[in-house]
């Protein structure tokens, strides 16, 4: 056997098994991911939302302390974790509210408040929503961190399948023109052509969406590393201090930060004691205004006792990588046309997965038939020889 043939066999083996193991999960991810591309539109269509008051551009904004207090009146005894500015809707703010400061923020309730009047708008229970169920199936299959990391592993296998797919693509089309679809040939040839064509056309998109998905599964770990790394460094002098008795003003924390970082706007605030800041600081996370820089956050830590700025640094590369992975996975950074393109590419990916599976089933079966045929022949020859 030539060494080229041998290595090709090895690559085919890699392609076959990496795909086979991940295919069912990739199908789940593609199917649940499809509605998630349009989650905002679906939620808007399926669920009533209290509209914020109409305010002219540049109208004065509500005091943030009041807005948060207003949201908390609906959740007595609970505490705010985060205040979030809606990227797409400047007329509303979100307050993420938990049972206690150390409660898991993924169980938080989200309350919407009017950005101009500070009035409470609504706090729907999203856990019964179609999009929430799709999201849970897509991110962790309702199996927590373990499920998430498992899907990440499947994503790595998917990337391996794509790369090995390129290697086995080359000899498979050696005598064919690019883009050949042999419509008149048997089904298995047509499936192979569709699989080859769609696979090679979508290489970059599937790799990018696949790998950014993998990175997203590491989000919890990335945050942990940041907590014990940069965040711990920035707040080292506060380590042994008791948490503040009374919190300084949230509004002034945001104002101080905006003055210190004038070319950016607030993205969200982490309240003292939550996972994204220290127990003694407001973490005010600023963002830029272009599609790219609006995902790149810059935290400023505001002493929640004195209201002064303690420190502000750019996030380390591993957090930035996570942040930039999000739009590239979601496809939510280029308007509705990009979402539609994302959806079509997702459907074509399903076609790749299904044709790949069919090809394996068919070949597997025909290979089994051949070996049974050989075995039968051998048996009949054997019986003839012995008789």
């Amino acid at each position: 056997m030539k060494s080229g043939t041998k290595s090709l066999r090895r690559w085919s083996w890699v392609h076959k098994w990496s795909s086979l193991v991940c295919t069912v999960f990739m199908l789940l991810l593609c199917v649940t991911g499809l509605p998630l591309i349009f989650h905002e539109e679906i939620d808007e269509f399926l669920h009533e939302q209290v509209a914020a008051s109409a305010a002219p551009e540049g109208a004065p904004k509500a005091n943030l302390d009041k807005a948060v207090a207003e949201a908390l009146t609906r959740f007595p005894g609970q505490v705010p974790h985060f205040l979030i500015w809606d990227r797409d809707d400047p007329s509303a703010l979100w307050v993420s509210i938990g049972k206690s400061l150390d409660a898991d923020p993924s169980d938080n309730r989200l309350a919407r408040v009017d950005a101009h009047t500070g009035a409470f708008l609504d706090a729907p229970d999203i856990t019964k929503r179609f999009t929430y169920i799709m999201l849970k199936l897509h991110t962790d299959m309702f199996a927590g961190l373990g499920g998430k990391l498992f899907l990440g592993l499947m994503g790595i296998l998917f990337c391996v399948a794509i790369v090995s797919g390129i290697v086995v693509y080359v000899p498979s089309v050696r005598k064919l023109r690019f883009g050949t679809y042999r419509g008149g040939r048997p089904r298995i040839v047509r499936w192979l052509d569709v699989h080859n064509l769609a696979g090679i056309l979508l290489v970059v998109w599937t790799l990018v969406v696949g790998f950014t998905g993998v990175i997203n599964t590491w989000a919890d770990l990335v945050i942990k590393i940041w907590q014990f790394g940069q965040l711990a460094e920035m707040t080292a002098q506060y380590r042994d201090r008791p948490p503040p008795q009374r919190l300084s003003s949230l509004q002034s924390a945001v104002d101080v930060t905006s003055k210190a970082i004038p070319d950016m706007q607030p993205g969200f605030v982490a309240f003292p004691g939550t996972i994204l800041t220290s127990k003694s600081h407001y973490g005010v996370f600023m963002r830029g205004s272009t599609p790219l820089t609006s995902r790149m956050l810059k935290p400023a830590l505001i002493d929640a006792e004195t209201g002064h700025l303690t420190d502000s640094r750019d996030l380390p590369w591993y957090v930035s990588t996570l942040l930039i992975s999000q739009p590239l996975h979601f496809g939510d950074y280029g308007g509705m046309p990009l979402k539609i393109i994302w959806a079509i590419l997702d459907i074509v990916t399903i076609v790749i997965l299904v044709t790949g599976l069919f090809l394996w089933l068919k070949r597997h079966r025909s290979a089994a038939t051949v070996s049974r045929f050989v075995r039968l022949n051998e048996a009949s020859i054997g019986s003839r020889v012995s008789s």
Partner: protein
Amino acid sequence: MTSPGIQRRTRQTVSQILMIPAALAVLSAGGLIFALVEDGVWDALSWVTLSIPIALFVICIVRGRR
């Protein structure tokens, strides 16, 4: 042999086979990045470049069906 022009008599080299896919890969990568840069024209550029693989897929299948 089905129809002339589809099957090639000579085996292509690896670089011949991968030339078009490589060009498409560069285009797709550009399409993914363009929309990140700015809104407006950059978005449109991204829509166009990312639509090319989809269009090619449809064209090749339709052309091959006959």
